[in-house]
């Protein structure tokens, strides 16, 4: 297997995980008319008011149904954007997005773009940020890991603390896998970036212990939820939760995407990005050719739901641009 196939595997693996989580359809419904999403929000209110357990799902009344087919969403698009701009100064690359009103971004990125527009430079742009701890940079770090580059300059534009450590860990693990390393050595490379006295470092070691004790990815799901998710906060993209889950499931699966990603998707709070990060690690381990063909074909075309310029782009082509 070539390093090029492993890079393609990291990219399409991330996209498969992105597509597998329930939030993907929510993100992809951004391509539908706003009234269509408003109706869905109203149906949420209906379910509450009428005490029915029949919950609304994304739907397309009088709208094209294509966006709601199984497919990738925000994380795959941000990975693609990172690969396409990877040779550019990171603050400049983000600065070009700062005035745009048609993008959909994580809270960390939104706050960073506002900071850049107000004249704040990195690392303050990522530090003076209510979601400095999220995994936006960890997703982008897959591209840096693929070419063996340091993700720090990119990560600090939008994140700080655990958010930056998470990017370092993801890049280290992906770099190790692209170079042909084992999943165990990739996990060790990630842990080397995560000091034990940080939340993410403690959580990563806890998650690995829980998954090893459970013995397989699906069996590990309740234990990971109990050990990592406190259910106190309103958002589930904290890097200190999603990256540890990805490392633990990738390791305990022995690098099998088809076992690890579905397990990650079974953690509802973390389903926006933990499956994508898990897919990146396992895809980089096996290479793209070893991934299931139906998923590979469903996940490779970007919808443009977060970054409209990327609509219709082939993610595998973009990965090949890095090799």
């Amino acid at each position: 297997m070539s390093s090029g196939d492993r890079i393609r595997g990291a990219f399409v693996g991330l996209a498969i995980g992105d597509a597998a989580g329930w939030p993907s359809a929510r993100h992809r419904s951004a391509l539908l008319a706003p009234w269509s999403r408003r109706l869905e929000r109203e149906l949420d209110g209906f379910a509450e008011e009428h005490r029915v357990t029949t919950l609304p799902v994304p739907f397309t009344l009088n709208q094209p149904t294509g966006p709601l087919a199984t497919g990738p969403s925000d994380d795959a698009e941000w990975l693609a954007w990172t690969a396409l701009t990877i040779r550019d100064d990171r603050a400049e690359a983000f600065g070009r997005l700062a005035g745009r009103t048609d993008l959909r971004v994580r809270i960390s990125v939104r706050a960073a773009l506002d900071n850049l527009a107000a004249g704040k430079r990195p690392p303050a742009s990522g530090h003076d940020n209510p979601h400095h701890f999220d995994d936006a940079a960890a997703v982008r770090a897959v591209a840096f890991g693929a070419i063996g580059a340091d993700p720090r300059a990119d990560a600090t534009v939008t994140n700080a603390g655990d958010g930056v450590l998470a990017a370092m860990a993801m890049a280290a693990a992906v770099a190790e896998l692209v170079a042909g390393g084992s999943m165990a050595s990739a996990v060790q490379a990630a842990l080397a970036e995560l000091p034990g006295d940080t939340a993410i470092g403690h959580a990563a070691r806890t998650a690995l212990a829980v998954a090893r004790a459970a013995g397989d990815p699906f069996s590990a799901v309740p234990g990971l939820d109990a050990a990592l998710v406190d259910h106190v906060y309103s958002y589930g993209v904290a890097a200190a939760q999603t990256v540890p889950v990805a490392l633990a499931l990738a390791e305990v699966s022995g690098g099998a995407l088809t076992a690890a990603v579905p397990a990650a998707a079974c953690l509802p709070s973390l389903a926006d990005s933990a499956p994508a990060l898990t897919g990146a690690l396992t895809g980089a381990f096996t290479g793209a050719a070893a991934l299931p063909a139906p998923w590979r074909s469903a996940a490779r075309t970007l919808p443009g739901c977060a970054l409209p310029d990327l609509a219709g782009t082939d993610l595998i082509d973009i990965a090949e641009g890095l090799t």
Partner: protein
Amino acid sequence: MRLTRARGCLLGLAAGDALGRPAENLAPEEIARRWGRLTEIEPGQGGTDDTEYTIFAASLLCAHGAAMTSADVARAYREQIIPRIDGPMRGAGFSELGAVQALRRGLEPPLSGMWHQHGWSDGLAMRAAPYGIFAAGDPGEAARLVAVDGAVSNSGEGVYGGQAVAAAVAVAMTGAAPGEVAEAGIAAIPVDSWTARNLRAAVAADSVDELYRAVVVRHYPWTDLAPEAVALAFAGYLMGGGRVEESVVSAANLGRDADTTAAIAGALAGAGHGEAAVPERWVREIGPVTGRCLPAVAGRHVLDVATDLVAATGTTT
């Protein structure tokens, strides 16, 4: 003087908490639409977590004094807070419940303050005033002590927010001018921090619009960010010229985490001007706390707490 300043500080805090309560999470425009200018405490409603957690912090200081450790604080959570959470936890911020969950997992400080995602919460800043009373005139010591408490529930900017408030109260307790009080708060925290950058912007802002542009995070739904809340509190205090009524009203009418920001502004102004400067019509609304947020402190009155705190410092002159 120390006693009346201490009592004024906690009375001002309780009044700000009660006044700001109905304006919490509102924008200044919405406050103006509902009240014109919010100047009266809703009768019979009292305060919230700000006052009750402040009493809790004061009780820690009375028990342990300057030798207090983060392990002492964690033990107090485990003995006094956690066993009495029966069903919903009322009126606590993200950082307090996050810390409770971390402590229940067996984590110890400082990891308990880092484990959850809300280390930047203003939960420490809201209860920082007692540290400034205890270390009156010594902002460095006030900042050191509040960080000992903060390590249990907060990290990073959340600790800095608490340190800025504690240090500023310590200097306000000397009767210093508002500008000097604000500078003492800024001087207590790292220059290269979000909180310091926001506090500088709050001191420099010439209008509410400019203040909002500089310190309010536009695309975030929660208002309890310490860098934002402490900046709005300091701004309210400075807009009010450090006088109790004007400072508390100014902070409350800035909205966002209005109970906490008005409580902090009230603590600073009350420390500067003493108990008698708190408007009598507000004082009448401040009774013993009910323990609705923290059952362990039910029945305590902030004035008694302030008196105990001064006694605990050993210098009641």
